[in-house]
């Protein structure tokens, strides 16, 4: 349970990270919070030749509101977002999701961008980014490009990031008036990987609903403002579309069951959470 040897490079800026990534590509790995990466290093599931440690890069440690989005830099910890006093108004879905992400001690060091870059299919932060149609900024020496979450997540632990690119920041859209949000997940114990995680955003135009932990990436469906049997039917169709598989934690049938049950609950909760027009 000790990592294999590697060269360690402390990075102070995006430009330094991009220079190293341009030179070393897949031989180098970005170390941000390390709450997933050091685990797999300890288990020797990964043995990169170089670690590029951005955890102390002040230039990448920012959380700010810009252009109607909550913008989170590559070195910003999950705790630095979770403990923002205004988070429940800014991005209510994140405020609902954070308590489900592992544990207090892990969120203290784990980063938001690191979770998005890791792209675990059961992870909450990618699920929220997908539901809210957020953005990922990828930077390399060739320049920067901005991808929607739907284009960034490509499969189990797979993303559109090229070997020379840094996930420089992620952008979660701020809540729009008249939209309610809800989040719920099921796991064996609090803080464990989600067997099924569901998020919903509901407003007068309809429903956006997303599921993590079932398909190989967070999956989103847009529905009209359904209720009752029509909603159950739509959720059942979506549950089958996810192509759930049996694994040691849960059967495919049980996962579909959870998507139908938790899905209906979060959609109804999100509907009830729509702020009243008077702002009360």
């Amino acid at each position: 349970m000790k990592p294999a040897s590697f060269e360690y490079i402390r990075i102070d800026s995006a430009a330094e990270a991009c220079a190293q990534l341009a030179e070393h590509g897949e031989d180098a790995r970005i170390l941000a919070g390390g709450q997933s990466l050091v685990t797999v290093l300890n288990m020797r599931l990964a043995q990169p030749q170089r670690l590029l440690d951005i955890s102390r890069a002040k230039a990448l440690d920012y959380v700010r509101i810009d252009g109607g989005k909550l913008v989170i830099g590559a070195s910003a910890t999950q705790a630095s977002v979770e403990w923002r006093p205004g988070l429940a108004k800014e991005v209510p879905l994140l405020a609902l999701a954070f308590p489900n992400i592992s544990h207090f001690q892990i969120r203290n060091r784990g980063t938001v961008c690191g979770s998005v870059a890791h792209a675990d299919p059961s992870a909450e932060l990618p699920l929220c980014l997908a539901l809210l149609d957020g953005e990922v900024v990828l930077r390399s020496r060739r320049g920067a490009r901005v991808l929607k979450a739907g284009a960034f997540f490509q499969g189990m632990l797979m993303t559109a990031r090229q070997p020379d690119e840094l996930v420089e920041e992620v952008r979660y859209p701020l809540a729009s008036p008249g939209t309610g949000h809800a989040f719920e997940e099921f796991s064996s114990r609090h803080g464990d990987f989600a067997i099924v995680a569901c998020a919903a955003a509901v407003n007068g135009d309809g429903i956006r609903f997303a599921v993590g932990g079932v398909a190989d990436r967070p999956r989103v469906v847009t529905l009209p403002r359904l209720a009752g049997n029509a909603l159950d039917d739509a959720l059942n169709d979506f549950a089958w579309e996810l192509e759930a598989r049996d694994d040691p934690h849960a059967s495919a049938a049980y996962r579909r069951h959870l998507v139908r049950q938790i899905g209906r609950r979060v959609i109804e909760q999100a509907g009830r959470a729509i702020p009243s027009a008077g702002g009360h």
Partner: protein
Amino acid sequence: MNRLEQEQQHLVTVTLNGVSRSGRAETRTLLSDFLRHELGATGTHVGCEHGVCGACTVRIDGVAARACLTLAVQVDGRRVDTVEGLADRDGMLNDLQQAFRRSHALQCGFCTAGILNSCTDFLERVPMPTEQQVRDMLSGHLCRCTGYTPIVAAVLEVAAARQTQPEETIDA
């Protein structure tokens, strides 16, 4: 930018419980092993070595974090607080440790060092937590002796006591 070669010993200096301490570490040396083997600070325990059990939790610049998921070279120049720093210089247990003792919040004690560090950080941020908040915080620690109930009781007791008797400022 700072580049450290693999398979070589690098000097790492930390402020451990208020005292500047230096030791040697390879890039791959975990903070948990650096504290125990290089600095002799064996109060930090090592359980699962993949971030699940919480036994190795220390405070890095005041923030509770897993020493087993942190490289020693990452904390060069930073403040690291461990269980050894909780009691005063004469060995008098602090209020949290005393509450753990009164409430039987430990039996074998393997998990206790990590839990005390988490509680120390947590109570600074949430001075009057609910039982549910305490249980959520403790979910990052495995304790196989107590069933957690006496730990929750100790934390709530300390939180309440600190409200009525604000902790004296001991920083010199």
